């Protein structure tokens, strides 16, 4: 055992944290996120005590819908990473395919992945916990569509950041959705959040979707107000994400980074 050799490897890993925001997030943000999420769930449970209506249904329904958002985002960004890891991006971008066509193809891939993952979750939620997601009824369609679109928005933004910042931004492919989880009010209502976070949540499409889901499970009916807000915000954000990607792609080409992505 030589201390200097052990120290060398320790230093090698600590150097990484000096100028890497994603790695610093690993240390500070994710533990903070866990605390916040479980803290708000605890407040929610404590506030309603025993009178909480159908909490198991809320929780399982939220978990399945959250997974839809997560998978649709990953369907884009992880598929993109696969091309990057395989050193295949140059082959793609020297072909006549346009960035919009490339993104559209990854959106379709994400739908396939999503359908498979969601089928498994819905089936086992029914088998293990007698939870039937389809009891949400027709409202389920706009809720899911909105989650998919929000996932795509995050996926497109993530792809743009990975193109621009390379490996440093790779962690976002798995984590970006979770950045929005506390203000998405997935497992608790928006009302549990402090006022300033409630204001932020108002601008996050997923918070309206999960509020809508809880409203349907709680009292039935069509959550038109929530779906209207989620759809409006999603439209703005997805257009914004394409603009962001296009702008970023221009910078990447200007800086000559396209050939270096993944290095």
């Amino acid at each position, binding site marked *: 055992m030589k201390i200097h050799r052990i120290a060398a490897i320790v230093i090698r890993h600590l150097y990484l944290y000096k100028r890497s925001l994603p790695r610093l997030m690993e240390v500070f943000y994710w533990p903070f996120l866990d605390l916040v999420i479980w803290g708000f769930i605890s407040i929610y449970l404590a506030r309603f005590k025993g009178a909480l209506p159908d909490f198991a249904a809320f929780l399982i329904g939220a978990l399945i819908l959250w997974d839809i958002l997560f998978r649709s985002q990953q369907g884009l960004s992880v598929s993109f990473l696969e*091309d990057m890891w395989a050193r*295949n991006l140059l082959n793609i971008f*020297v072909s*006549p395919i346009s960035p919009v066509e490339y993104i559209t193809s990854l959106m379709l891939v994400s739908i396939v992945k999503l359908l498979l993952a969601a089928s498994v979750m819905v089936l086992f939620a029914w088998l293990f916990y007698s939870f039937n997601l389809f009891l949400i009824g027709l409202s389920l369609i706009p809720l899911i569509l909105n989650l998919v679109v929000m996932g795509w928005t995050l996926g497109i933004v993530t792809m743009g950041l990975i193109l621009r910042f390379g490996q440093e931004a790779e962690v976002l492919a798995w984590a970006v959705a979770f950045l929005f989880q506390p203000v998405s009010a997935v497992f608790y209502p928006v009302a549990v959040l402090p006022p300033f976070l409630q204001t932020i949540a108002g601008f996050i499409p997923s918070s309206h979707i999960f509020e809508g889901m809880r409203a349907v499970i709680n009292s039935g009916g069509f959550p038109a107000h929530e779906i209207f807000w989620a759809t409006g915000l999603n439209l703005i954000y997805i257009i914004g994400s394409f603009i962001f990607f296009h702008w970023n792609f*221009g910078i990447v080409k200007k800086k*000559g980074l396209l050939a270096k992505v993944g290095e």
Partner: protein
Amino acid sequence: MQINPIIEVSSLTKIFSGNKAVDNISFEVYQGEILGLLGPNGAGKTTTLQMLLGLTTPTSGDIRIFGLDISHHREKILQDVNFSSSYISMPYSLTIMENLIVFARLYGVKNPKEKIAGLLKDFEIEDIKDRVVRSLSTGQITRVCLVKALLNDPKILFLDEPTASLDPDIADKTRRLLKKIQKEKGLSILYTSHNMKEMEEMSDRIIFLDKGKIIAAGRPEEVLTKFKVENLEDVFIKIARGV
């Protein structure tokens, strides 16, 4: 042969953070010729190739391919162009055939299976077409990438050190094959390599780049005469050492 310039580059400059990677270069590539781009590391060869492929935006200057501006007609130009490099690869979990089918679709190749089978045979890799890329040697991957580069019957082929990872025997076979295909199809090739013997053998004309500038251009024998040396390797060493 040299009638129509198929690539016209004029006053091309690329500046990265104040450094001129490519400094006001102009050249043409004619239909059916092989133009070798040479120079030490950092000379601007790869940056020039990337600008010609539309991967990097020039700071100033013009690039016209088939008479069209690459910045406005990227899709149309790239349909008839292809690229290979020993530094790129393909998805590892897919077989050679699956990968090539994907690229055939990207370029809208008609009868893709026939086309692929013919090229695999030419490059002597038809017997491994069902193997996943992960299991291939670097040399085999390079040949798969060359097959990919010829799938769309390109009119222009950009090759960035295409034989860098091949053993001398396969490298020689690959050069001969490329030369044969180039002659048969009247293909224009822009070629970079650090193998000076290869450049002399392959190129109709060469351009020597150093610090982003063209310092010599012409037929290989013309460049040798200019530098009063017997082979391109000596030219390269003279330039690299600033002799």
